[in-house]
Each structure stands twice: as structure tokens, then as C-alpha cells.
């Protein structure tokens, strides 16, 4: 636990009312703005022509950044983004790359207008550099942003911003974060906004102050120039646009783009029920050697056309698993953009007007300086995004028209595995196992999740070919495959994840490895409507493996059993050595399922078995589907197997009443796949049994089963004590009539019971 540093709070940037911002800038800084009448008077032709051209400007800016960057994290993983903002920093357009970053670029501009306008001033030809996640412009110190005020005819018209993840920006460990970090001083020094370009000239002293901290100063220097170049591109084209159409017209279009996005999101929200939805997730270890479990708590309330994300109750900041305010805001946006705004223009400035955040200072998701925050984006920010996804999906599920946008949580985190050593050309190398980009997607109401579909936060992620990995690093990939049974079981199955098994090859020296990622004892990829969560993450080093002996004997190991050796299971945050005879197994996360797997179409299960998405064993055990020797569904045996599974649930949950028939579908307003509304009573959609009174937290009172985690299936780690001391359970809440699973979770035993409450179809006011 770190102690607050007095004086550090001035770097905490928060959204500011634009009028307050305007009133606060000195009169020497003239802001260009237009009134609502200019926005209202735009004709459709002018609006659409300029809107499209602004898109083209923003797009070209991102293209410039991507091309000029020397960083594989930018060029391969698309971990970068960019934005065009109005005069007070509200985002008009953002890129389609790392969607986290959109939630921080405006924060940096707000802060700059408040803290740099007087001294050193904001002038034409300036650009600011920032990697202070408390200020914004990124979520951790690796996110370095360059942003520039754009002046036209003497007035500050708007801002352009470009941000990209930098491989190394200093600190005690390569990559600038470490499982050993106690506070931010173990990591890269956060740099608040400094003028890196003055009067259109890159300032050498400032640039070198920046690059000097890095283990890769030339790469940092190249990327700095890439971001400067991206801003120049944006400003050159913006200037031409303003010269053609006039500043007032273009500004009116910018305002209307944001208003349009806001109004469309609000209209969507008004169609959804008012209520409060809950979700809770965990970070498993706060650093090397730790065995703790740290909770992130969300209560999402929707009232009318506004959302409130209340994170109170989240654990205090600890170890190296924290993020500042920009992180929790990013987590929200990473889920909100795809779930609610897939068909709405991504004008961040408009969309972010539709929600409020409540988060206590000094907690994991709103950490105070000098907490270690280097892991923030892939740790607590990502985890917060999972919870937001879960709550939004539950809200959308309660209205027929919005159910197509329901999707269970995707891979719950980035399984970060870094390897370092000497490569086959005798040079030092550091690389990330980027195959873990291939997370499974969550299942939807009417569809399975996309297998190895990628990450929610990086819509255009990419995993490398095995050949490129083997060409650039001294390793051999024994396998790189989709993992059978990994997808969250459900009526709709979560997308499967994958695994790689790696052995050192053609290197003279042992490798160093860093393993970082939660979701090993509990799941981070929740299912919905009784769908099971996706797999627990599993990383291990197989010490003294037989792999090379087998290869020498003409066999290629195809399973962990064949790879052999002693299994050294990696905890949440580990630095370790890897010997030349060891093997590394990395198995990242899949997507959650939707609906009870006992209700999945048996033919779909049979097809899954043929396509190796599900094993025959799990088909029987988890889905209750029995196949004949030639892979066909044995209908009678399947019905019997499913009936037995339901009987088992009933007995374990202590349900004594007669079993209701689950064959028909009960009519009524659907609340999700299993529940319908009958007056004020919620009934099981499959058997008609009353579940409780609508508007109350009735699920908590229904029968439930709690078993060991292995009850969820072979994809969940059976022995949580490997990682944590707290007991972990597979918990299911059941329909008392037909024993259909209404909720299925792998959680700590003290995880709260469901408490969601929401209003009916027509009861919302406004």
C-alpha cells in the first residue's frame, strides 16, 4: 500500500464542463466556437460532405502514424489510436484501433487547457508530449501521446492527438513494468504535458529528455516523429478543409457529429429498462509471490437516457495491479463502444456525455499517485471493461429489440508472456507471445462466439504466423492450436481460445520469461443467462521436458503428457528462468457462453465434436449430448442423459417438488433466454414455474448448487489452491421447476448473490 503524495493530486484530470473550461482560459487564448444556430442551420449535403472528409482526415492521420512507427506493437498489434477534438478537447472522431485510448485523449486536452494556457502558453505551432496516465493521453506510461492545438485565423479551432504503445520507456525492467513493482517509481517516470514542438520545430532538448529514459531510444525517437508526422498530416488537411468551407461551418459539423452520436445513444438508452445491474470481478495476484484475490465491484444504474457506473466497494490500490481514473473510463468505453455504439459514429465527445462514473480515489480502478500502474490497461482497466460488458448485456437482454447486441464477455484479459534471451543470430531479443491475441469471443443470444476471434479492445488485432515467430525468435512451436472445450459452454457456445507449446531452439543460453495475467483460479470471461464462463487461463513451464528427446526419436509431442517434464504452474505475476530443456505452455482465454448448455441443439454439439471445438466427453458431461460411434446424436440417450443431469442438479440444490416439463416455451415478454414476465411475476420460459416478483432481486432466493470448480467442465482449473487461499466454487442458480440454469459462475465462495433489479417494458418514465 502506497501513501498519497501531497501535491500529486493536481495531475488528476477529470472531465470538465466545456463552459467551465472556456471560462478558465486566459483571454489571450481565443477559442473558436459556434452557437447552436450554426449547428441547426447546416444543410444535409454540407454536413455529410464535411463529415466524410473529416473522417478521411482522421483516417489519414492514423495511417500516417501506423506507417511511420517502427514499433511492432503498433504495426502488428494495432495498439495505438488517434483523435480529432474540438477547441475544448471533446472528441469528434476516434480511430478504430485500441479503443481504450479514446477514453483518455480528451482528458489530456482538458488538463492542458487548465494548466498550460497561462504558462508556458498554448500557441500556434506547438505540440505537447505526455505519458502521465493521471493526466490522460494514455492508460499507462507506455502510452505516449503527442497532441497539438490547431489554430486557424488566430483562434484555437481544435486539437489532434496521436498515441501509441512504446515498447520501453525506462524503469527497472525491460518493457517498463515488473511484477516486483511496489510503486510507480519502479516503473517509467510519468511525464506531464511538455512542449515537444514549438513554433513547428521539434525541440531537441525536450525530445532527448524523453528518449534518454528508454532502453530503445532510437525506436522511441522514431515513434515520436511518427506521432508528430500524424499531427502534421491532420493539421495540413484540416487547414485545407477550413479554407474551402470556412471555420464556422466545419465547427458546426464537428459539434453536430458529437450531438448526433449523443442523441442516438440516448435514444437507444431510452428504449432500455431502468434499473441497476451488478457484476464483480477479480485480480488474482498483486505481484510476484502474492496469493491474494482483489475485487472490482460494479453497480450499473440506468435512468432514462443516462448510465451511471458505480465502482464503490472495489479493493484499495495494491501492488502493481492498479490503474488511474483514465483506466476505469477506458474500461467503460472498451465495452460501451462495441455493445451500444456498433452502429453509432464513434464521436467520443458525444458518447461520453451519456454516462457518469463513481469511483473512490485510492482504489485499484482509481489509483492515487504513486501507485504502480504500468499493468493498468491489461489488468484492472480490462477487468472493469468485462464487468461493464456483463452489465450492459444483461440490460440489453431484457428487451427483444436489443437482444441482438447481447454478447457474453470475451477473453477476460491479455495473457502476457514475454520471453528474452539470445536469438539464433546471437543477438539479444525480447518478444511477446502474440498468439494470445486470439481470444475467443463471447456467445450471443442467437450465435456462438467467434472462435479465436481476438480481443474486444483491439477490434483489428493480429496474431503472428508460427513461421514469423520461429524466424524472429529462437523457438520451435510444437503446436499452435485451438483448444477443444475451452469455449464457455452454453445454448450458444463461447468462442474457443487456443494454446501454444514452445521449446527453445537454436539458442546458446536459457531464456528469461515474464508471465502476467489473472483469471487462473476464477474466471474473467463470464457467461450470461445460465451460460458458463469460458476457460481459466493456464500458463506453465514444463521443467526438464521430454520434448527434444521425442523429436530426436521422430515424434512430435501433441499433448502435455507427451511433452512431459515437471509442471511449474505460473501464478498471476511471475518472473522466471526457462532452461534449454524446458517447454512453455500458454493457454489464453475464451469467451463466455449464453444460456444453459443442457439446452444446446444436440446437432450443434455433434458438429462441434466433429470440428474439435468440444470433446465427446464434454459433450456428454457438460452438454448432456450422447453421440453414437460414428458421431451422430443418439436422441434417446441424450434425452436420458439430460434428464439425469437435471435430476442431479435438483438433488444437489435440495429441490424436492415434482420436476416440471421443460419441453414447451412459455409466452410472455422475454427478460432473457430463460425468463418471461407474466404480470408482476417472472416465470421460467421453459416450464412456467414462478421464479419471483419482478423488480425484486429474486434470483438470490432461488435454489442453487455450489460444487468444486471442476463442475463447470474440463476448461476450468480444478484446484484453486494452486493460486489462491480462498475457496472457489462453481455456482448455479436454478429454476425450481425444470432445473434450467439461470446463472452459472466460477467465483470465490463469498461472491455476492445476484441482486439485479430493473423496471418493466413500459414503466420507465420520460
Amino acid at each position: 500500500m502506497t501513501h498519497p503524495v501531497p501535491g500529486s493530486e493536481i495531475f488528476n484530470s477529470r472531465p470538465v464542463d466545456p463552459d467551465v473550461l472556456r471560462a478558465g482560459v486566459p483571454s489571450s487564448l481565443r477559442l473558436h466556437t459556434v452557437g447552436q444556430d450554426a449547428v441547426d442551420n447546416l444543410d444535409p449535403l454540407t454536413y455529410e460532405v464535411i463529415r466524410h472528409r473529416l473522417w478521411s482526415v482522421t483516417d489519414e492521420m492514423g495511417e500516417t502514424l501506423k506507417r511511420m512507427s517502427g514499433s511492432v506493437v503498433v504495426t502488428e498489434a494495432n495498439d495505438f489510436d488517434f483523435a480529432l477534438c474540438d477547441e475544448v478537447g471533446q472528441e469528434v472522431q476516434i480511430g478504430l484501433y485500441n479503443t481504450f485510448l479514446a477514453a483518455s485523449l480528451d482528458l489530456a486536452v482538458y488538463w492542458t487547457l487548465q494548466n498550460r494556457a497561462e504558462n508556458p502558453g498554448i500557441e500556434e505551432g506547438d505540440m505537447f508530449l505526455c505519458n502521465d496516465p493521471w493526466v490522460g493521453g494514455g492508460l499507462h506510461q507506455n502510452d505516449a501521446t503527442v497532441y497539438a492545438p490547431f489554430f486557424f485565423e488566430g483562434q484555437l479551432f481544435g486539437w489532434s492527438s496521436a498515441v501509441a504503445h512504446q515498447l520501453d520507456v525506462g524503469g527497472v525492467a525491460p518493457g517498463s513494468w515488473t511484477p516486483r513493482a511496489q510503486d510507480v517509481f519502479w516503473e517509467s517516470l510519468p511525464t506531464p504535458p511538455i512542449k515537444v514542438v514549438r513554433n513547428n520545430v521539434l525541440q531537441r532538448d525536450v525530445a532527448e529528455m524523453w528518449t534518454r529514459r528508454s532502453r530503445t531510444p532510437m525506436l522511441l525517437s522514431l515513434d515520436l516523429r511518427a506521432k508528430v508526422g500524424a499531427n502534421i498530416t491532420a493539421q495540413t488537411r484540416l487547414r485545407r478543409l477550413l479554407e474551402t468551407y470556412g471555420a464556422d461551418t466545419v465547427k458546426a459539423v464537428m459539434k453536430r457529429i458529437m450531438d448526433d452520436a449523443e442523441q442516438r445513444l440516448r435514444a437507444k438508452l431510452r428504449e432500455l429498462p431502468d434499473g441497476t445491474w451488478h457484476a464483480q470481478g477479480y485480480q488474482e495476484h498483486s505481484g510476484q509471490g502474492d496469493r491474494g484475490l482483489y475485487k472490482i465491484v460494479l453497480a450499473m444504474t440506468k435512468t432514462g437516457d443516462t448510465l451511471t457506473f458505480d465502482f464503490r466497494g472495489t479493493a484499495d490500490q495494491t501492488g502493481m495491479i492498479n490503474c488511474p481514473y483514465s483506466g476505469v473510463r477506458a474500461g467503460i468505453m472498451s465495452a460501451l463502444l462495441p455493445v451500444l455504439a456498433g452502429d453509432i459514429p464513434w464521436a467520443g465527445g458525444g458518447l461520453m456525455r451519456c454516462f457518469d462514473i463513481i469511483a473512490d480515489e485510492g482504489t485499484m480502478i482509481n489509483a492515487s499517485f504513486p501507485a504502480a500502474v504500468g499493468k493498468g490497461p491489461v489488468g484492472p482497466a480490462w477487468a472493469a471493461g468485462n464487468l461493464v460488458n456483463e452489465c450492459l448485456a444483461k440490460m440489453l437482454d431484457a428487451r427483444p429489440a436489443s437482444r441482438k447486441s447481447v454478447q457474453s464477455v470475451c477473453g477476460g484479459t491479455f495473457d502476457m508472456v514475454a520471453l528474452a534471451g539470445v536469438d539464433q543470430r546471437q543477438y539479444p531479443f525480447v518478444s511477446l507471445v502474440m498468439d494470445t491475441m486470439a481470444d475467443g469471443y463471447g456467445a450471443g443470444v442467437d450465435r456462438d462466439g467467434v472462435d479465436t476471434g481476438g480481443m474486444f479492445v483491439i477490434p483489428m488485432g493480429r496474431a503472428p504466423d508460427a513461421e514469423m515467430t520461429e524466424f524472429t525468435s529462437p523457438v520451435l512451436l510444437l503446436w499452435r492450436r485451438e483448444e477443444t472445450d475451452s469455449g464457455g459452454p452454453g445454448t450458444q457456445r463461447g468462442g474457443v481460445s487456443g494454446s501454444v507449446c514452445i521449446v527453445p531452439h537454436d539458442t546458446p543460453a536459457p531464456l528469461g520469461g515474464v508471465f502476467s495475467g489473472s483469471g487462473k483460479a476464477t474466471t474473467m470471461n463470464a457467461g450470461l443467462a445460465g451460460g458458463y464462463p469460458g476457460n481459466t487461463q493456464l500458463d506453465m513451464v514444463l521443467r526438464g521436458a521430454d520434448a527434444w528427446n521425442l523429436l530426436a526419436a521422430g515424434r512430435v509431442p501433441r499433448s502435455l503428457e507427451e511433452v512431459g517434464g515437471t509442471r511449474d504452474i505460473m501464478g498471476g505475476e511471475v518472473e522466471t528462468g526457462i532452461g534449454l530443456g524446458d517447454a512453455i505452455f500458454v493457454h489464453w482465454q475464451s469467451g463466455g457462453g449464453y444460456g444453459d448448455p443442457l439446452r444446446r441443439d444436440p446437432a450443434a454439439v455433434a458438429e462441434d465434436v466433429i470440428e474439435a471445438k468440444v470433446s465427446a466427453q464434454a459433450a456428454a458431461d457438460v452438454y448432456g449430448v450422447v453421440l453414437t460411434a460414428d458421431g451422430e446424436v443418439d436422441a434417446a440417450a441424450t434425452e436420458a442423459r439430460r434428464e439425469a443431469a437435471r435430476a442431479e442438479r435438483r438433488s444437489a440444490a435440495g429441490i424436492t417438488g415434482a420436476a416440471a416439463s421443460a419441453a414447451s416455451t412459455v409466452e410472455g415478454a422475454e427478460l432473457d433466454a430463460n425468463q418471461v414476465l407474466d404480470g408482476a411475476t417472472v416465470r421460467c420460459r421453459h416450464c412456467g414455474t414462478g421464479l419471483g416478483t419482478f423488480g425484486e432481486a429474486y434470483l438470490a432466493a432461488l435454489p442453487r448448487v455450489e460444487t468444486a470448480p471442476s463442475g463447470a467442465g474440463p476448461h476450468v482449473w480444478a484446484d484453486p489452491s494452486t493460486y489462491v487461499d480462498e475457496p472457489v466454487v462453481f455456482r448455479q442458480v436454478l429454476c425450481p421447476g425444470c432445473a434450467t440454469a439461470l446463472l452459472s459462475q466460477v467465483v470465490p465462495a463469498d461472491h455476492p448473490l445476484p441482486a439485479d433489479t430493473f423496471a418493466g417494458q413500459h414503466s420507465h418514465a420520460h
Partner: protein
Amino acid sequence: MSYVIGIDVGGTFTDAVAARDDGTMISTKTPSTPPDYAEGVVTVLEDLAGRIGTDLHGLLSETSYIAHGTTSTLNALVIGDVGRVGWLTTVGHRDSISIMNVVGRYAGQGPEQVQDILATRKPAPLVPKRRAKEVIERIDYKGSVIVPLDEDHARQAIRELLAEDVEAIAVSTLWSFRNPAHERRLRELVHEQAPGMYVTLSSELSPRIREFSRNATTIMSTQVGPTLSRYLEPLTDRLRGHGLRGPLLVMQGTGGTLAAQEAPKTAITTVGSVLSGGVTGATRLAEQLGHRNVICTDVGGTTFLVGLVVDGAPLQTTTTVINQHIIDVPMLKVQAIGSGGGAIAHLDAGGNLRVGPRSAQAVPGPACYDQGGTEPTVTDADLVLGILNPDNFLGGRKKLSLERARAAIKEHVADPLGLDVEAAAAAVFAVQNAQTSDLVRKVVVESGEDPRDFVMYAFGGAGPVHCFAYGAELGVQSTVVPLGPSAAAFSAYGLAASNVGVVKEVSEPGTFPVPALAVTKTFEDLEAEARTALERQGVDLVDIGLRREVDVRYTMQLAELPTPVPSGTLTDADLADVIANFETRYARTFGEGTGFSAAGFQFITYRVHATGVLPSTVTLPDADPADGAPVEAALTGTRRALLDPRRGFEDTPVYDYRRLRPGHRFTGPAIVEVPTTTVAVSHQDTAEIDRFGNLVLTHTTEEA
């Protein structure tokens, strides 16, 4: 008398051009005849013969060769009408084709589709797992055998594939391009059990690093190879039966042709067949007009294609995307950026006017076609604005319904926006033009070029209507609408004017410096392969041209740039020059100061482009010379038309292209009605007919 014939089979029309050795040219157009496109090919040849005044036998017996662009391959892949194929690959790596490097979820999608993340999906794997078998073998990055091929196990895998009733087998194993021994042995093992089975080896078809795209390329080629054979073999026989003595050549995406009997072996190279004709034609036209840099816009009813000619040569790419799969096929870079005249105008959920990307397609087509379409398209707006003539569209072959066009625009655009129909049509027209200029600009800029250094060519039915506007906004110097004798069939002309071409490549990734001796050896091997491949075509060639290049990259970076390599025996100094050239090209493409030479350099893939020059040279003939008639003689009258929303409707002179002659000049606003298209000329343009009959627009507007 002898002829060279180009035939371009598109989805809607089959176009043909016959170039006679006296320099004259005849072109024609007939409907395509899916699913049996061969029927349309014979019909268009009969039509050509008729126009020449002979019969099919008379024409074919005097034809040196036919160059044929076919949708067969692409069509089969897009609609999934492909052969039942088995696949053999390295143990542990079969899932490459389902993981798809994640990019398979969004590759080839527009930004709006990518943004709608929940709706993105991967396509089904190219081969289901029951027909994808792993074999026990392993080769490493050096080409060293780590685990020898387990032949008994492989025989069993092949047996299982054959039991699945496969008609062809694709073989693609890890690092086979470094050491093809296992793949070659696997082919022998297949033929042990199934003699004569169609087998493709990745090490022969596409020996390039990155297994996902190599696997996909190999499998797709295997899926369409037999299909292409089934199309070409009977067609060849039929044409032979009608007297054709010269070869039937099939166009590839590279702009070079292959003999019909050879093409199915590397079927995937024909996938860009129909796209490359237009750019090839534009390249030939550019030679004749002396243009070095050309933006080619080919706008049809349903597609908007953009290709570039830079410094006299068409821009090439080494990969393309088909059905969200990355395919390693060298081809001309032709990008689809929109939906052409069929782009639908609509209001989005926020009530804002949008145009495209959805298209009315060929069926139902624009509302004014009166074929059941009710949504307004760009073509409907063009009609309402008076730019198109309802009674003289495509030379009067198609009547347009102004009433339907107005009704569609009124209901879907004008009424909801509170505009009158004319203002709504003007908005659709202006939005389409501005958007087009943004999207064309993106193509040009992303190729590292500046539109202001280019001339634009606009062809296809819908391009000339709008080119004055998007050309001017792009800032090009002038815009050429290719007309003259090839007007009806510009792509077919491109086909007739092309040569035989093969590309041979191999990845041998290595970090610079690479021994010059080894590089020389690699290129000599590739050149020998390329010559052999040309000889196998069985076509008389007057010359063979060989061009070397290597894909270079900065270590760690993704972007590889093909960089020219000199011929002959290479020295270290030559390779240093290659690196210097790469750095210059890199700076030009990605921006000054963006190179990261401190990271070092890597040579990844070596490639030889071989061109077999055909005996006949096809060039565009001169148009009918000026007959002394003044330009006014071509005026057919005026009509109220709107070309610029700021000026509104005005009396606009209408010219009949058939009466315009080389040297005729006029200024806009004007409309030129051509039997195959309509050309609009703005008040800021000067139009002139050049000696080939092309209409050349000189813009005086500033780029926006």
C-alpha cells in the same frame, strides 16, 4: 489479315475486342450467360465476326490468339462453389486455417463493418477438420529436418482423405519453401493410392513465408483448379472445333496471360483476371498518350474499382484478400472502394444523409431501371438532375423511368429531410462525388503518392458521369474518358494488348548482409523456373523479359517492400545498392525520415517476373479524322441539368459523341451522350477530343 481478340467476361456483360493487323479495331458487347459463361463467349465471338463481315470459323481461323479474362475462379470462390478438397499439413498446426491470425474476422471489411464488432464473423474454415489431416514431420526455419516425414502415418492420413471422397489434395507444411522434400514425398504418397489426383504443393505454388496465407492460397487454388479445367477444356475444344488454331490465353491478376491448358495448375493466379484488364488497357493507353502517372477509375453499376499506374507501370501488390482470407498472389493492385452507380442513398439512424456502401446490385438495380428497385441510387439522382437522358441511356438500349427515380428519392431522402426532390438529388450527387474523392485519395495516399501528380482515367458505364467532380476535387491535372473504337470494351482491349506472364518466387528470409553468391543462385534458379514455365505454355514468343525483385524490410517491421534487383551475377556492392534503393522507396512510400535502419535489414522473399512477348502488338487506332464539321454540328440541343449544386439547374448543351471529331473543343457546362456512357463536363472544365477519340477534361478547379 490476322486478328488478336480480347474477351472480358463480367458478371453482367461479355465484352470483346478484335484488333486487326492493319491497325483497326472492332468491339462489341453481349450479355453474360451464367452459369455457363462459355455460351456468352461463343456468342460474342459470333457477334464480332458478324461485324467484321465473316462467320465464326472465318474469324477464328485468322486469329493469332484469344486473351480471355474470366470471373470463373473468383466467382467460384465468392459463392463457395468449389471442389471437395483435402489438406495435409504439419502436426500441431492444422488450426492455422481456423485461427486465421485473428485477421480473418475483419480482413477486407470496410470501416463501418469493422466498427460493428458484434456483427463481425470469421468465414467457415476453408476445409472442415475431417478433411484437414496432420502428418508427422517437422522442418525448422533453416530448412533442417527436425522430424522426418512418417510415411506410414501419412499413408493412413491420405487413405482417410480419399475415404472422404476428395477430388483434389492441397499440401502445405511448415517451412516447406525452405525445404520442399516432405511436400514432394507427400505428393508421391498421394499418387501411390490415387494416381493422377490433382495435387498442389505450397512449395511450388506459393513458396512464401507465413503459413496462414500460404495454406489459404494453396487450398483455394486446389479448390478452383479442377473447376477452371472443367470450364476451359470444353471451351478450348469448342473454339478449336470452330477453327481456332492459335492459343486460348487466360488472364491472371498480374496482367499477364497463361495458356488455357496450363492455367488450372496455378488456378489462384487467375483470381484477379477480370480486374486487371482495365488497368492493363489504361497502361497501354498511357504509353500512347505519354502519361506516366494515372489513377484508373472503373465504375460500373455495382462496383467502383481503383488502380494506379506509377511511372509508367501498373502498381502491383503481393497479397490480396478473398472472402476474408489473405491470399499470396502477386497481382495488379486494384481496390474496390464503393458501389458505383448502384450505391443506395439513405438516412442513417441519426437522420443524416448517407450514400452507400450498400448497393442495389444488378438486381433489382436502381429504381429508374424499373426492375423492382425502390431505394434511390446515385443513378436515380443523376437522372433527376437531368444528367442522364431517360430515352438515350446506353445508346437508348435501356429506357429509364424518371417517375420511379423521383418517387424513390422523394420517399427515402427528400421527404424525411424536408427538401424538394431536386435538392435531395443534388445532395446525393454532391455527397457521392465528395465521398468518392475522399476514397480515391485514400488509395493514392496510402500508396505513398500525391494525387496532384496524376492524370485520371475514368471508364465503365458510371464513371464518366461523375469524374469531372471527383477528379477536380482530387486535384488531378486532367481527366481522360477513354472512348474511340474500344469504348464499349476497354478492359477487353487491355486483354488483347497483354502478354504472357509468369511470376516465380521463394522466401529465404535472412538478415542483411546476405551472401551475394547465394542471392545470385536464388535468382538464377527462379529465372530457370520462369523460363521453363513460359516454354510449357506452348505459345510462340518473340522475346522473354525477366525482372528481379526482393521483398526487403527493416528488422521487426511488418511492411515489406518489393525492391528491384539488377540482373546477372550480383556483387556485395549490388546488394548495398538494393538496400539504398529500398530506403529511398521506403521514405517515398511511408514518409521522409521514417526508415529505421538501426534495426537492420532483412531480405524475405525473392521474386522473378517473366514476360513472354507475343508476336502481335496491339495499340489503339486513331479515331476517324476531323471532317471539317464544326463542334456545333455535334450539338443535339440543350436540357435543364444540374452539375453543381451551387449553380442549380441551368440550360446545358448536349453533344452527340458520334459526331465529335479529334480536335473538337468546348467548355462546360455540357453533357456528352456516348452510346456506352454519359460524360458530364463542369463549367470549370474544358473538354477536347484527342486523336484516338478520347474525351479529355482539363480542370481549372482547385482540389478541396
